[in-house]
């Protein structure tokens, strides 16, 4: 369906028939999105926009287990229904529309007893067969999710914008379940990041650089997207490479460790296990009870933590499905003490362990093949999904093979049959009834202990689909990407407030810059006095200007009975849907007043030879962060933070991020794993691994770059890095007036007179003269030449901007672009009242606040305008209120007992009050009010928790 829509659009553009274009436009617009999506296969697509999310159902497990190296794995299960439709009293679910998914944090690898949940059973991953799919010549359009293969993988073009007028987009490879890991910024119009190595810049402040780096081939471990051509509307990829998992073997029982003295045996169940020491390994023999008959034997080498061994799984283990045994040779079973399931183990007495060989024996084996039916229930197909970077197992999915229908009479569909130790029974069932014509009014999921969810149709009027997502799984974060903001901003259940966890010390911080608000803080989606308005640019682009208020890092000092908001803890932020650019009449609302952006002053901050230490929650370990190792960039409005690291084939991959003043992160993750280009392990069998891995040697996205010198798991040395900074920007509250002048033409601009001295149509220049009221020339400037070179660098490049604008005191004049000077006429935009807003300077009409313009790390443009408190704000019984800049909003503490905040709210300038933001007692007044890019980023980080907590609030 989607493809036909695409094809139709394209053929129309070719024919150019405006009428037919209109018809199709109305068609595509009137067709509801989900109805269009339902017609095609549901793989990779999310449930309907109004699908219910419920986090808890007793039978769906959430567990944190450890593998035998003590590494924690967070395991979670979920059940999802998507693509369902209701028609004529029937609910139809397409093939693949109902699925169960079990996933692990990061990934699961063989040979380390990585735990996994399979329909509620704790199991261990034993072996894996992986592969990589390479698709050539993939084409898609903006916002499309295009199918890549018959398993249902898709490529998604989520977002696109432009720089110097050239497009770039963010793309993600989606698994059939709808899960995706990272959006990769790609363009075909800009220099490759590698070229940043050739930059010659000094440490410290440098002028704005011209080049804008963006790769056309993004490498993310086993995933790689290579673009051929990306325009504003279409993208063509020469190659899309992503990992898949073909086969996985699990053991459904806890392992058993036995220590055998070499050249001897021990009994295991009804068999004898022998161990013989050979020149190149240990020969293990499985014999019958008497030892007379060898049932299986193999020469084993020990499993250890080296990752390459996973490619050599055949050599590392004896697997026999007939005997239902899988034996691995372990070095030191004491390591198993770190695992949650301490395996059954016997041991030799008195520490006489010399010459003892330890085997770990798994049984209850089950082999799952991607695309094959689930062994217990052929109504379901097994899907094995890979982690995008390592290519190892991320998720096991069981989806319905055939489409099915539910009616009022036959109202339930059983989930897959589980493999239990006691009773193989359906793991869950989906019940849908009270179907009335085109709507369904009752739907729930029952687990294997007969417990059920609440009615998943939350509205009395019923719903036109029965889609849902049940379970506290990481998958919800990527699946609900399209709708999470609407969900969280939904005012139906008020403002959910989480009760604070009280601790016996005040969580004091000295300055909150770079901090995010408390992940549990209340989110007020709408406060009347805040601005959220469309701003139309000269090109007719409609952008949303929205402001928001954030309080972060606040705490109660219970010993003094005071609420403290540290410096930078209270900020007001205003921004556009994207960066604010000059020369286009773009504006943002500052404290409710429309401010036209005229120009910006930004530069590049360069640091050389710095070491970046790994970030840990030190020293309290309670989730209260202390960013002691952040590396400030230049003026300190941005810092680099080392967020995490992992190993990919033994090579450390550091994940760092540029953190902005607001606490938001900038751009995509900085993945630093130099030296991994088209790597494929040489050990083992190609057929087992069959994947090629690449990682970028360095990071460069837009104007921000980092060249690592050395990457270790907990430290990165950076040879050179740079990111933009901004000192000030110029705005005017008065709208620019349009002036069309010929040579010799004059116009009044404020108290000055502007005269066009000459226009050169050939050279594309114009000479402007500005006189004061006495007639003296105060400024003269030649604008242009407005040639291709200038256009190519506009609107972002500052020297190019200077060629098309003139500023004198409060007067600002700019050329209307594109300028062709036809008939010697020149179109100008002139405004008075231009004034600079400078970084770290107090806000003119309210000195309690300091201005912090924030620059975009891509393009040197104004990203957001922040005003924050330079001094701590102390609230207590005597001073229970604090006003925002110019009284724009007000913080009111209603009820505070010295330790617990029992009631507080915010007010806008008209006195409109938010609900009580401490309906459950709190120990801080962190809050997010309003929706803009800044709060959206924080919400995305805490999405799973917030979505889940809304449910608690709904039932309240």
């Amino acid at each position, binding site marked *: 369906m989607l493809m036909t829509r695409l094809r139709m659009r394209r053929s129309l553009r070719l024919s150019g028939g405006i009428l037919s274009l209109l018809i199709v436009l109305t068609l595509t617009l009137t067709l509801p999105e989900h109805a269009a999506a339902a017609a095609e296969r549901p793989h990779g697509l999310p449930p309907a926009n109004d699908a219910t999310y419920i986090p808890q159902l007793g039978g769906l497990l959430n567990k944190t287990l450890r593998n035998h190296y003590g590494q924690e794995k967070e395991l979670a299960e979920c059940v999802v229904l998507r693509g369902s439709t209701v028609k004529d009293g029937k609910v139809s679910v397409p093939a693949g529309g109902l699925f169960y998914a079990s996933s692990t944090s990061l990934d699961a690898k063989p040979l380390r007893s990585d735990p996994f949940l399979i329909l509620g059973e704790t199991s261990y991953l034993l072996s894996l067969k992986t592969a990589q799919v390479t698709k050539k010549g993939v084409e898609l359009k903006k916002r499309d999710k295009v199918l890549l293969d018959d398993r249902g993988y898709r490529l998604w073009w989520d977002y696109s914008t432009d720089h110097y007028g050239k497009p770039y987009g963010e793309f993600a490879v989606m698994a059939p379940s709808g899960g995706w890991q990272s959006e990769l910024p790609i363009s075909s119009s800009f220099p490759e990041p590698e070229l940043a190595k050739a930059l010659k810049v000094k440490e410290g402040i440098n002028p704005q650089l011209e080049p804008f780096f963006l790769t056309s081939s993004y490498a993310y471990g086993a995933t790689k997207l290579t673009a051929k051509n990306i325009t504003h509307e279409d993208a063509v990829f020469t190659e899309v490479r992503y990992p898949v998992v073909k086969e996985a073997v699990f053991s459904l029982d806890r392992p058993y460790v036995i220590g055998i003295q070499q050249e001897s045996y021990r009994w295991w169940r009804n068999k004898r296990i022998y161990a013989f020491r050979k020149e190149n390994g240990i020969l293990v023999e499985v014999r019958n009870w008497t030892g007379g008959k060898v049932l299986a034997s193999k020469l084993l080498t020990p499993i250890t933590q080296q990752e390459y061994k996973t490619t050599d799984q055949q050599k590392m283990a004896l697997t026999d499905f007939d005997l239902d045994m899988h034996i691995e040779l372990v070095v030191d079973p004491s390591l198993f003490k770190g695992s949650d399931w301490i395996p059954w183990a016997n041991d030799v007495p008195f520490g006489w362990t010399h010459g003892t060989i330890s085997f770990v024996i798994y049984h209850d084996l089950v082999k799952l093949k991607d695309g094959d039916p689930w062994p217990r229930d052929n109504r379901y197909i097994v899907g094995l999904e890979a982690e995008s970077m390592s290519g190892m197992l991320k998720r096991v999915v069981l989806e319905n093979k055939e489409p099915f229908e539910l009616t009022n009479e036959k109202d339930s569909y059983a989930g897959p049959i589980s493999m239990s130790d006691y009773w193989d029974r359906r793991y869950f069932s989906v019940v849908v009834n009270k179907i009335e014509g085109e709507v369904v009014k009752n739907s*729930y999921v029952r687990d294997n202990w007969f417990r059920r969810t609440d009615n998943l149709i939350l509205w009395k009027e019923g719903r036109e689909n029965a889609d849902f997502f049940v379970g506290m799984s990481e998958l919800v974060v990527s699946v609900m990407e399209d709708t999470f903001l609407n969900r969280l901003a939904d005012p139906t259940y008020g403002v959910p407030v989480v009760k604070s966890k009280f601790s016996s010390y005040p969580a004091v911080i000295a300055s909150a810059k770079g901090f995010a608000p408390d992940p549990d803080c209340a989110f007020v989606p709408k406060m009347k006095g805040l601005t959220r308005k469309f701003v139309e640019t000269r090109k007719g682009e409609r952008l949303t200007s929205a402001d928001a208020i954030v309080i972060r890092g606040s705490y109660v000092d219970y010993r003094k009975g005071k609420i403290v908001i540290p410096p930078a803890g209270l900020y007001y932020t205003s921004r556009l849907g994207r960066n604010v650019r000059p020369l286009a009449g773009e504006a943002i609302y500052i404290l409710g007043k429309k401010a036209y952006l005229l120009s910006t002053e930004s530069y590049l901050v360069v640091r050389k030879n710095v070491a970046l230490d790994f970030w840990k929650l030190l020293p309290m370990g309670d989730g209260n962060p202390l960013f002691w190792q952040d590396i400030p960039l230049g003026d300190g409005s941005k810092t680099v933070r080392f967020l995490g690291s992992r190993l990919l084939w033994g090579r450390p991959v550091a994940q760092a991020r540029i953190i902005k003043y607001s606490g938001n992160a900038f751009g995509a993750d900085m993945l630093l794993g130099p030296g991994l280009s088209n790597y494929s392990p040489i050990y083992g069998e190609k057929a087992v691994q069959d994947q090629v891995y690449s990682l970028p040697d360095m990071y460069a996205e837009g104007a921000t770059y980092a060249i690592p010198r050395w990457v270790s798991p907990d430290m990165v040395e950076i040879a050179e890095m740079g990111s933009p900074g901004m000192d000030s920007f110029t705005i005017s509250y008065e709208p620019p007036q349009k002036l069309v002048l010929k040579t010799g033409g004059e116009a009044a601009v404020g108290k000055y007179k502007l005269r066009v001295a000459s226009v050169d149509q050939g050279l594309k220049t114009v000479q402007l003269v500005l006189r004061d009221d006495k007639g003296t020339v105060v400024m003269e400037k030649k604008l242009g030449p407005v040639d291709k070179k200038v256009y190519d660098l506009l609107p972002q490049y500052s020297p190019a901007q200077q060629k098309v604008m003139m500023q004198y005191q409060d007067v600002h004049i700019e050329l209307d672009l594109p300028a062709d000077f036809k008939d010697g006429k020149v179109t100008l935009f002139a405004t008075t009242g231009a004034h600079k807003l400078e970084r770290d300077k107090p806000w003119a009409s309210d000195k309690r606040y300091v201005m912090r313009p924030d620059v975009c790390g891509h393009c040197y443009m104004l990203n957001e305008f922040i005003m924050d408190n330079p001094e701590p704000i102390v609230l207590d019984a005597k001073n229970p209120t604090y006003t925002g800049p110019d009284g724009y909003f007000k913080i009111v503490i209603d009820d505070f007992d010295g*330790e617990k905040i029992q009631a507080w709210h915010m007010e806008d300038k008209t006195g409109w009050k938010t609900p009580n933001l401490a309906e459950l007692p709190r120990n801080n007044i962190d809050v997010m009010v309003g929706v803009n890019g800044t709060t959206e980023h924080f919400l995305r980080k805490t999405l799973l928790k917030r979505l889940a907590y809304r449910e608690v609030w709904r039932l309240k």
Partner: protein
Amino acid sequence: MAQDVTYDQTVAGRPEARKPSIWSALPSWQKSWPGLLAMAVIAILCGLPGLEVFPFTIDALLRYFDSVLPPIYGKGLFVDLLHFNYVVTCLVAGIVIRNVIGVPKSWEPGLTYSGCFMNVGIIMLGSQYVLRDLVKLGPISIVIMVFMVFGGALIFTFMGRYFKMGDALTGLLAAAFSMCGVSACIAIAPMVRAKSEEVAYAIAVSVTFGLVCLFALPFIGRLLGLSNDAFGLLSAAGVPNSNQVIATGFNFSFEAGKVSGFSNIGRLVLIPAGVLFIYFMTLGKELRTTTISFWSVLKEKFPLFVFGFAFVWTLNCLQAWPVPASEAMGNVMNWFFSLCFVGLGLTTKLADLKKAGPKGIVIGYVAGSMRIGLCLILLFIVIKMGYFK
């Protein structure tokens, strides 16, 4: 109901014997451990808040039923709608055991400690309050409590006269309903020269009325949409027995339980004054044979453990410990209350309802309900006047 006084009565009943140590009024450890143990075991089986180590509880079972049954407007039947919290579970478990299975005699001495555990709970309740609570509940609640104690006594004297009930019984009922039930009843008994049957009768009426209140009031409260504070005050003013007051409050919500515990202390403090008031109201001049000194009544009847409550409360107001510690104290408090509620359930004989008889029902229940109605009207007025939320 004299047979309910299970400690060795002979000691107190023999004036000629050497005055025994007051500790002999307590049943010995050897006698009381079965009852104590039974209370603890039943409480744990019911599911104590903050004690999640033992998963197989009645509470967990009810929650399981809730998750199996279809939710009603998103809410579970037992926990959300019928409000089977630990208070109800403990009480019902106790009542069921006593009235269906029966309680062995060996438990009885231990069960008498349930009142003691309630006192422990009330003292620890101090850790849940800050000064703000007093300010919040404020003078209005004090006024309401004073009004309800003395006004309630007046209602009963009026009813007593109207039904020609006799002064002693009127006094007993007035004391039982307007102050703290059984103990006030017993305290006033010798002063109004009551007979043992009358004492037993008054106790039966007040206890059964309290029992009805315990389950009915929270529903009425929810029906009227009362706030936690208002309900706490209502339960303290309307329910006769102290432990029933607290159970009713906690049955509504934790916050309401806190308030009712707090207001109940106000009522306890008023006992001496109330006793004297009833004494002078009910008995004609000619009957006042005993000479009564105000100070001796105050000294004898004043609930001393209120000082313990005040002490803990003061410490909490001075932030002697942070919130997590007071939350832990709240849990421990709940455990003691649970023991008390189990004990309360185990000593509740539904046969008492029959004992109270029709007249008792008329006088006690009508007057008791009138008090509650009066209290509701008062609350309505102060809420509408904006003095109280």
